[in-house]
């Protein structure tokens, strides 16, 4: 079972507090959306979970791996963490000098030490799953944004992670291309993947995710079942934010 536990996690840049005492738990197979205004610390929180940004204090636990944020992380723990948790970025960050297939295969060969042929077979399987098997020999620059993001999802899935983090995966895409990415994510959720999604897609937050976490100013201001929060938010700040998003 790969539950995720975030215990009193804080992150500061100098004196500026970006995350202030964040606590939550996610059960294996749950899909959680993190919403909130820009600068509220959503992305930083996500990046703290896989230690792209090491937090200053608190505990991050993924499955039976526990990271004490005040200690210097051991390399073996970091390796395990990144193998267990896949990450998808807002700007895709595919490797432009590698073909689509190599993008997906690289980590399997380097990290899992899979032979190239086996890695490529697995990559093709993942590319089929995101509907892009026919692009395997292309370079990323030849793919649309939506396709690139789906390839990025396949790349993150290549290490067979137990959980996936999505950092505003559709924000750089026009609505139509965003939709194809959301469809892939919805399918992934249906397979029982544990997912944390920072997003401005309120429909996705309401319909696909089980729970919603609302952040503002580095804190969690509201946290609960999706339908409840999206329909009847309790705090004034959440109400204001949801109005702003919906009135657009």
């Amino acid at each position, binding site marked *: 079972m790969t539950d995720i536990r975030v215990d009193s996690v804080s992150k500061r840049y100098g004196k500026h507090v970006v995350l202030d005492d964040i606590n939550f738990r996610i059960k294996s197979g749950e899909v959680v959306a993190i919403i909130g205004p820009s600068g509220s610390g959503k992305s930083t929180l996500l990046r703290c979970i896989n230690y*792209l940004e090491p937090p200053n204090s608190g505990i991050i636990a993924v499955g039976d791996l526990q990271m004490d944020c005040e200690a210097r992380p051991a390399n073996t723990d970091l390796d395990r963490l*990144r193998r267990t948790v896949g990450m998808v*970025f807002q700007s895709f960050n595919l*490797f432009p000098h590698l073909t689509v297939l190599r993008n997906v295969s690289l980590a399997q060969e380097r990290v899992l030490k899979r032979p190239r042929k086996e890695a490529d077979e697995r990559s093709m399987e993942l590319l089929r799953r995101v509907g892009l098997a026919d692009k395997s020999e292309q370079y990323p620059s030849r793919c649309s944004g939506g396709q690139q993001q789906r390839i990025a999802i396949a790349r993150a899935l290549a290490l067979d992670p137990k959980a996936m983090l999505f950092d505003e995966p559709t924000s750089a895409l026009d609505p139509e291309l965003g939709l194809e990415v959301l469809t892939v994510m919805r399918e992934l959720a249906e397979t029982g993947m544990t997912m944390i999604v920072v997003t401005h897609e309120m429909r996705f937050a309401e319909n696909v995710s089980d729970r919603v976490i609302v952040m503002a100013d580095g804190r969690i201001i509201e946290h609960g079942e999706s339908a409840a929060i999206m329909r009847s938010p309790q705090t004034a700040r959440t109400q204001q934010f949801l109005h702003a998003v919906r009135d657009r």
Partner: protein
Amino acid sequence: MIDTLSFWREWLPLLLEGLKVSVEVAFASIPIGIFLGLVFALGIQSKSKPLQALTVFVVELGRGTPVLILLQFAYFGLPSAGLALSSYAAAVAALAASTGAYTSEIIRAGLEAVPYGQKEAAIAIGLSRRDQLRDIILPQGLRIAVPPLLGFSILVFQGTSLGFAIALPELISRAYFVGSNTFHYMPIFVLAGLLFAAICVPATLLVSRLEKRLSRYTAS
């Protein structure tokens, strides 16, 4: 005019021998120099402060010293330290050292031009620091650095003419020899210049074409 042509025809074989030496020295010192440049560039980005400081010192020394002095140091200076080099080896050593110092900055700039998201993506898929560098940063960074590196290589080729100062029998030494024997300095140096240009001009054109082709697969 006819006189000049027949004069050129008479001495062209000698100059071509010189050109051959220039090309050989350039082809030996450029790869060594660029390899040194890569080592220096990685040294400057090293996490170890002493290594970083040492590399910065070496690079600044190499960039701050005129190549002519490096050449004379390698040829006339090193023997007093017990290392006597032929003019050929001294020229290669000095040009490689200078190339290393200059290209380290070109390579460093190339590596730094790789968007940070590339490194983050590499970290996120669990690549070790070594693999991040080998598979993601170096291939993209060096690709960015290739056109300026080739441009610099053309300058190194021209720099072989400084070998004249340490009796390296390269193109300019030969031209000077011919000039001092025939007193026709002007036409022989024009011919030497034409020979340099015959290599440098096409090389420059090739580099700019390559630059256009390489720009295709870089990250946005």
